[in-house]
């Protein structure tokens, strides 16, 4: 309990604010429980004192002079008796060789000294550069320390951006709207459930929905299909982004998950499902996404598993030109044969297109012209495409 003797402070009011702040702490510590502190930047050991060798003084002139004067003294003096001259000449030759060697050495010594000089200069420059580098590094380290605390400060002050909050709000509103929309335009729950019964045999023949080979329904919506599978004792679960739909499915005790279909599929192991179904979802997706969806479907299906997708049939002109636009979230119709080719390209086989739900014809189609008109205007409103993952290979 918090208490104060200060009459200016309203404890009840203060306590309210304390609780609000405390809940922030709890939230943040949940988020950053594992948030490790930034590693410390190791300190740079002080620069060692670098000894730069100084070139010695080669005393070249002095050496040259000594050598020159020595050479002058090599010649055998005329005062030496002749019989000794041979001996002295030999000595002279020896002396000359020594002098020559000395002068070669002197030259090389001079060259070496010059090299030492150059190396010293180079070392000095390098040393200067290293010191500058160390300073630079220290400045960088300081900068990073300052930056990290500022970043941490910003992170702490970060509140949920207003537009994100708005996004969530409007997302929820949209979700509810879509449920309303489905109820109004898609057809009643029972009606749809009845219509979907058409696909049950495909599952049965592929052994989908049996233990170890569950069916995944993408974009499960209100859950008509899932309920139908459940009634038929087939193992199945669904995924949908729409929170309102998910809530409705959960009311019916269906196994569903709120997620993006592709992301969810990515998280599933390969060869894990007997069937993957998707009713009226492919027309909501851009081409690239759809390709990925078919790819993921292929990956998660067991060999011999079945994929079933249903979509509006745009070969029916009324559907393609008019009704398709009822749903504001539709992107573009998927042409049946295109879907077929896409699935084939992912390695599906045994493809089969079924045209469903023809409309009532308001006129007699006895003539050929009327029959064409009937097909174009009152033909099947949907098509289903059934494909299998090859059993081998």
């Amino acid at each position, binding site marked *: *309990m*918090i*208490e*104060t*003797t*200060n009459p*200016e*402070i309203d404890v009840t009011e*203060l306590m309210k*604010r*304390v*609780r*609000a*702040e*405390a809940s*922030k*702490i*709890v939230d*943040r*510590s949940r988020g*950053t429980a594992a948030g*490790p*502190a930034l590693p*410390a930047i190791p300190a740079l050991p002080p620069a060692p004192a670098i000894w730069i060798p100084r070139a010695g003084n080669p005393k070249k002139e002095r050496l040259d002079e000594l050598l020159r004067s020595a050479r002058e003294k090599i010649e055998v003096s005329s005062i030496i008796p002749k019989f000794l001259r041979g001996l002295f000449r030999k000595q002279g030759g020896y002396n000359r060789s020594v002098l020559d060697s000395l002068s070669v050495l002197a030259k090389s010594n001079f060259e070496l000294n010059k090299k030492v000089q150059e190396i010293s200069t180079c070392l000095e420059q390098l040393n200067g550069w290293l010191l500058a580098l160390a300073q630079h590094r220290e400045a960088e380290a300081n900068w990073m320390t300052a930056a990290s*605390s*500022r970043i*941490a*400060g910003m*992170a*702490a002050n970060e509140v949920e951006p207003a537009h994100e909050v708005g996004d969530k709000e409007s997302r929820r509103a949209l979700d509810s709207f879509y449920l309303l929309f489905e109820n109004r335009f898609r057809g009643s729950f029972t009606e749809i459930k009845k219509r979907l019964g058409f696909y049950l045999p495909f599952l049965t023949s592929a052994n989908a929905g049996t233990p170890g080979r569950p069916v995944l329904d993408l974009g499960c919506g209100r859950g008509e299909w899932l309920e139908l599978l459940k009634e038929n004792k087939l193992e199945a679960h669904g995924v949908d982004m729409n929170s309102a739909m998910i809530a409705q499915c959960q009311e019916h005790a269906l196994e569903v998950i709120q997620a993006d279909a592709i992301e969810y599929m990515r998280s599933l192991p390969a060869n894990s499902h007997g069937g993957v179904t998707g009713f009226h979802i492919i027309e909501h997706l851009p081409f690239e996404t759809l390709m990925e969806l078919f790819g993921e479907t292929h990956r998660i299906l067991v060999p011999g598993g079945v994929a079933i997708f249903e979509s509006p049939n745009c070969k029916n002109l009324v559907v393609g030109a008019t009704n398709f636009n009822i749903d504001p979230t539709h992107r573009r119709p998927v042409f049946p044969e295109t879907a077929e080719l896409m699935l084939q390209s992912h390695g599906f086989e045994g493809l089969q297109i079924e045209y469903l739900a023809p409309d009532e014809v308001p006129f007699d189609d006895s003539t050929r012209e009327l029959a064409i008109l009937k097909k174009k205007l009152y033909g099947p409103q949907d098509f289903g495409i059934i494909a299998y993952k090859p059993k081998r290979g």
Partner: protein
Amino acid sequence: MKLGIVIPWFGRELKGGAEQQAWQVATRLAARGHQVEVLTTCCRSHQDDWETNHLPRGLSTEREGFAVRRFPVAARDRASFDRVCGNLLSLDPATLQPGVPPISAEDSDIFVNELIKAPALLEYLKESKHDYGSFILLPYLYGPILKAVEILGAQAALQPCLHDESYAYLPEVALAFRQASQLFFNSEGELELALRLYGPGIWSKSILVGEGVEFDPAPDVSNGSHFQDKNDRFLLYLGRKDEGKNTPLLLRAFRRFRAVRPNCDLRLVLAGNGTAILNGSEGVKDLGLVSEEKKRELLRGCTALVQPSQKESFSRVMMEAWLHGKPVAAHACCLATAIPVKKARAGWLADSEEEWAKLFVELDRASEKDLRQLGENGRNYAASAADWDLVMQRYETALPSPSTNEPQSQPVDISAAPAINQFLPDLAYGDAISNHAIWIREQLRTFGFRSEIYVRFIDPRVARECHPFTPEAVEASDAAIYHHSIGTDITPCLRAFGGPKCLIYHNITPAEFLEPYRPEFAQILTQGRKDMPLLAPQFPTSRGDSGYNAKELAEAGFLNPGVLPVAVDPARWDAPPDYELMRTLQDGRTNILYVSRFAPNKRQDQLVVAFSHYLQLDPTARLILAGKPEVNDPYVVHVRETVSSLGLEQSVVFTGSITDAQLQAYYRTAHLFWSMSAHEGFGVPLIEAMWFDLPILAFKSSAVPETLGEAALMFDQETKLVEVAALARLLVADRSLRDNMISAQRKRRLEFLPGKVAPLLKNIVRELSATFCLRRA
């Protein structure tokens, strides 16, 4: 005795705030019968060349009945000064930090020495200061004033006329504030600023004298003929028009306001020196410099006065507006104007351009009745704050009366006086009980007793303050004061002492706190408590630091134990803080401080855990645990382990053993004092924190509620640590909560001033001396 007023420039006609103030004070003190002499230079005014002696040197007399003594100015290094001054002016105000020199020591030296130079004035002060009783020196900024304070020391009353500018941060200025024996302030805001810049050490010698405003209550005879028609509504700005006074901000804000309300009839009228760049601003009129009469007329006619300046130590025009019953809009960041506006409830405050623009909208909408009410509030405030008679009375009370100015009489020989000595186990540097004992000794000496401190263990840093304990020292005392916590080997001597004696109890930490860490010490504590009843009959006079301690004494059988709180004197901090620490700690991170030795009952470990929660809300904050940790103490090891297990090495600072200058730096830069201590006999750092205006968050235990008194904000065992951390965050971040806390703490801290505690000590002395007089007889 003569009163000297020292000011660089002086004259009847000078317009500057300090110069006017000096003229008024000299005139009025002379009129009240004081012998006043103004000591100034031969330089004519601030605006003239500072090396030229325009006026004759020597003594002259003004017809108002006071003397003026002028001294020549000398040549100075103008180039260097201009360079340094330029540097100072170009500093970003946001980078100025209290206690941190803004420029190098060499430059600072140039600034102080190469401003106006008056060596002859200083020489005269050195030689003749004793011919004067005391001196008032103003304003703070100039070299001769700073140096004169140093020369005059105990005779110097500095009237700084301070405002928040880079010069105020120079160490030489801080030094002058410490050297002066008194500080006279013109406004509460100015005092507040000084405390912020130089710390609470100057508090005891700070006096709010205020500043008067001459008000001519002549009736309005102008019929508004000089200025537009009577129904015209206008806001008035009076004063110099330049960047320093913030007039460009005012104009920009007014333009914004007009952009929103183009048809509004509320206008802005400027009057004063300088040029305002109006840029064709709609509804703004610049009258230039106006006569006094015209000024009064404008004040009578305006809707409100606007005072956007941030650099005021006292705003005369604000008081004048109030005396005319007009409300004032002032800058929220200028303490000298904002505090009176808030306090008087006589206007509005605004900060940014946007806020000022909003304020104009509010002003435009305000009803006649509201404006009148605000103006009336202002009139009441100004009538007391700016009344010259009241101001002069405050000067007279503050200045030493002539009788005390006589040369000090010969010191009394007290070698024959009775000796009241104090005995305690140890005296340590910076330790609260030790400081308390030293204070008691000084008091006893001023009461006329001989008094020494005898201790068993001496810290070399305070060796000069005490003597080694001997049983003979006890016997040689006429009376003894024994500071008791746990018993030591000096206790038996004190028990055996037959003379009058008083036991002061500083409490014994309950043993259970120590058991997990130092069981052997826990046993000593247990024994200490067991021994208490044995001491009771031996000490007929006894005191606890707090009612809490006194209660324990009573429970142990002591007869009528009283309370002698620890005196906490802010003057202790009248020394420079550690500059380097001041710089390091003002790096934008929040500093949370706890000051105490490390002990399990102080619960530094819990504080660290609670602080780890706090970090979620303020990730760059640091926790400073100021106190000397004993090496290898198992509890200290535990606290350090807690820190590393939470990964808080970068956020928790262990100061180790520190000096007073360092402790001052920690206090001055902290944002919150946070105590989790579960057992306190008194809690001196709580009162110290109050002096540094740190909001205090404390665990409710033992003597803590009593010490915090009416200023307590506490939590108990039931409070979750996250909630405590959340509360800590609010105390750091919420301006109004902080202000509430601090204003209560400012009242509470006064209860422990030496002046409040001294009479209680006198009571003890009375009880003791009654006995030894008997003995002597």
